[in-house]
C-alpha cells in the first residue's frame, strides 16, 4: 500500500472516544476547540490537564457542567506551567515514596497565546528550565479572543484588533509576531513543534511524541478564530492550510535541537491568499502586504536552512 492510500485509512485509526466532550460553548468554527479535541484524542485517558484562563476554560467548564472526561484543573491565567510543575512533582514524590502506584500519568498544560507568550511566559520558562516531564500546548489564535480581540505579542503584523485598531495613524498591530516556538527551543528542551488542526494527523503525532519524549515538550498550535480574524466560520480548516502553505505558519519539529520540516513548500503561495478572507487584514495596502511577504519568505528560508533543506 502506498503512502497516499495509507493516508486515506488514517482517520479510521484515530479513536472515536472523545475526552473533550461535545456540547461545550465554543463559537461556530472554533479552530481552538477542534485542536483541543485532537490533542485529547492523541493523549488518551491517562493524563492530567492544567488549563489557563481563556476561551477553552470558559467554554468547557461552566458550573455545574464540564466537557472534560479526564482530570482537569484551572486556577489562574499565567501559572499553567507552574501548576503542572507541582502536579508532576507530586506524582514523582508520591510514587517514589510508595504512597501511590506509578502509573505513568502524562501531565499537560493548555494555554492561549496570551497565557503563553505574554502573561505566562515566566512560569513557562521556569518549568522548561527545571526540566519537568510535561507537555505544554499553546493554542495560538493570535489575540486575546476571550476578552474581545485585544492584541497580544502573538498578533501578526498589520492585523486589526480592538487594542491595535486601524486609524488615520495606525495600520493596526505594528510589531511582528513573537516567535514563541524559538523561545522554547532556546531552553534546550527535548521536543518543540508547531501544529495546526487543519493537519490533524500531524498534530496528533506531535502531541504523542511530545508526551513520550520525556522532559518538557512544547507544541505551538495555530488555532484559526473566525470571531477574531473576521472570516466566515466554514473557512477554519482552509485558513489553517493557507497559513501553512503561504509560509506564514510553517509546520516543523525540533527534536533535541534538530530541526525537521513537517511539510515543505519550495514554492510558497502568496500571503495575500491567506490574508484576503480575513477582515482583520482588509485595510492593508499593497506596500504593507509586500513587506509581510518579504518577511515571511526570509523567515521561511531561515527555517529551511536550520532544517538542512537545500
Amino acid at each position, binding site marked *: 500500500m502506498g503512502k497516499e492510500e495509507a493516508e486515506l485509512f488514517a482517520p479510521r485509526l484515530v479513536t472515536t472516544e472523545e475526552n473533550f466532550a461535545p456540547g461545550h460553548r465554543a463559537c461556530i468554527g472554533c479552530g481552538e476547540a477542534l485542536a483541543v479535541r485532537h490533542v485529547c484524542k492523541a493523549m488518551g485517558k491517562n493524563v492530567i490537564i492544567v488549563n489557563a484562563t481563556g476561551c477553552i476554560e470558559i467554554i468547557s467548564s461552566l458550573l455545574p457542567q464540564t466537557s472534560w472526561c479526564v482530570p482537569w484543573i484551572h486556577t489562574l491565567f499565567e501559572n499553567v506551567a507552574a*501548576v503542572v510543575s*507541582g502536579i508532576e512533582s507530586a506524582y514523582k514524590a508520591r510514587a517514589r515514596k510508595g504512597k501511590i502506584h506509578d502509573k505513568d500519568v502524562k501531565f499537560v498544560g493548555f494555554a492561549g497565546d496570551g497565557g503563553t507568550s505574554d502573561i505566562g511566559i*515566566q512560569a513557562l520558562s521556569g518549568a522548561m528550565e527545571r526540566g519537568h516531564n510535561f507537555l505544554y500546548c499553546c493554542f495560538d489564535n493570535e489575540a486575546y479572543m476571550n476578552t474581545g480581540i485585544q492584541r497580544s505579542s502573538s498578533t501578526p503584523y498589520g492585523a486589526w484588533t480592538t487594542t491595535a485598531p486601524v486609524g488615520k495613524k495606525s495600520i493596526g498591530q505594528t510589531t511582528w509576531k513573537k516567535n514563541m516556538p524559538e523561545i522554547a527551543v532556546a531552553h534546550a528542551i527535548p521536543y518543540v513543534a508547531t501544529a495546526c488542526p487543519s493537519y490533524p494527523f500531524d498534530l496528533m503525532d506531535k502531541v504523542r511524541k511530545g508526551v513520550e519524549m520525556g522532559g518538557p515538550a512544547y507544541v505551538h498550535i495555530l488555532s484559526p478564530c473566525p470571531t477574531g480574524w473576521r472570516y466566515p466560520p466554514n473557512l477554519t480548516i482552509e485558513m489553517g492550510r493557507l497559513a501553512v502553505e503561504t509560509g506564514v505558519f510553517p509546520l516543523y519539529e525540533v527534536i533535541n535541537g534538530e530541526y525537521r520540516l513537517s511539510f515543505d513548500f519550495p514554492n510558497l503561495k502568496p500571503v495575500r491568499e491567506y490574508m484576503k478572507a480575513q477582515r482583520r487584514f482588509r485595510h492593508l495596502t499593497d506596500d504593507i502586504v509586500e513587506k509581510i511577504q518579504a518577511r515571511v519568505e526570509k523567515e521561511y528560508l531561515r527555517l529551511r536552512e536550520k532544517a538542512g533543506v537545500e
Partner: protein
Amino acid sequence: MEGSFAVAEAVRLANADVIAAYPITPQTHIVERLSEMVADGDLDAEFICVESEHTAMSACVGASAAGARVFTCTAGQGLELMHEVLYIPSSMRLPVVAVIANRALSAPLSVWCDHSDMMAIRDIGWIQMLAENNQQAFDLTLCAYRIAEDNEVLFPTMVHIDGFYLSHVIEDMTLPDDEEVAGFIPEYKHPFALDPDKPVSMGCYGPPFIYPETKKAQEVAFENTIPKILETWREFGDLFGRHYALVEKYRMEHAKIALLTMGSCSETAMLAIDEMRAEGEEVGLIRLRLWRPFPFSEFREAVKDVELLVVLDRCVSFGMGGPVCSEVKSALYDLRKKPNVVGFIGGLGGRDIPIEEFKYMIQSALGKVKAIERGEEIETEMIGIRE
C-alpha cells in the same frame, strides 16, 4: 535552634512530599535548611526551586490538588507576589501549609519585621496563626498540617513567625521524635485529588447564578474550622505538654487594663506587664494566637471585665489607623458592655519596641480615654517616631 531551622524540622517530621519556594529575606534559612535535608536524604521530597513566589504558590496548589503534602514559605514582597494565587487554595479547599517570616513592604525597601504582609492577605480565607517564639513556630507548623489536612477543614494554613526576631534567633527547644509525630499527623488523603482513574474538573467557571453559593459554602466551612483547630491544639497539648489557645491571656486576673499584641513582641510586652504589676497596676496582656478565622467569642470573653483595651498594630492601614485595632473595635461593637479601645502603631520595618514603650502606651491610653470622654477625637498614635 534557629526559628527557621525549627520550621524546617517540623516540615521534615511531617514528611512533606513537595516543597516549592523562592528565596527571600528573612525566610531564606528555611528553604536553605530544607534543601539540605532533601540533598542529604533526610527528607524524601521534591524540592521545586521555582522562579518566583507566584510560581511557588501555584506549584503548591498543583501538588496539593494531586494529593501531595506540600510546603512553602515566604515573606513581605514574596507574599504580595503570591497574593493572587492565595485565593485559589482557600476557594478550592487545598490544604497548603505556608510559613511566613513577617516582613515590611516596600517602599522604602525594608527586609525587617512588621505585619504589613500578613494584614494585606487577611481576607483571603487562609487560617492564620502566630508564633511568639521558636518552640511555638515548630509546634504550630506541625499542628498546621493536622488542621489543614483534616477532611472537615481542607483550608490552607499559614503560620506567622516574625522575621529576624524568630527566623534568625537561636533558642532552646524541645523536639519530639519521628514516631511521636507520626502518631499525631495522619497520612494525608485529599478526597478528590487529580487522578486519571477518578476524573474530576477543578476550578470551573462560576457565573452569577452559582458564584455566591460557592462563597457562602466557603465562608460557612471556614468558620467551622475553629472547633477543629481547638481539638488539634488540645490533642497536641495532651501529647506534648504545650497548650495553645485561640486567644492567649497573661496576668489577666482582675485586670482593668489590657494590652493586646500579636507575635514576637508579646514576650517583651509580658515584661512590661510584670513591671507594672509589680508597681501595683491592674494590667494584663492578651495575644491573638489565631488571626483568621477571627476568634470572636474567645476574644469577647477575654476582655469582658476590661475597662481599657490598648491595641498595638505593627502595620498601617493608611487612612484608617491600625488594622488589628479596627477589627477589635468591630468585634466589640455589638456588646452592651465593652471597654474603651485605644490603638497605637509601632514596630514598623523592624523598629524594636522596648519595655518602656509598652508602658508608655498604657499610660498614654489612659489620657486618651479622658479625651474621648470629653468628646474629643483622638488619632492613632505612632509610637517612637522622631519628629
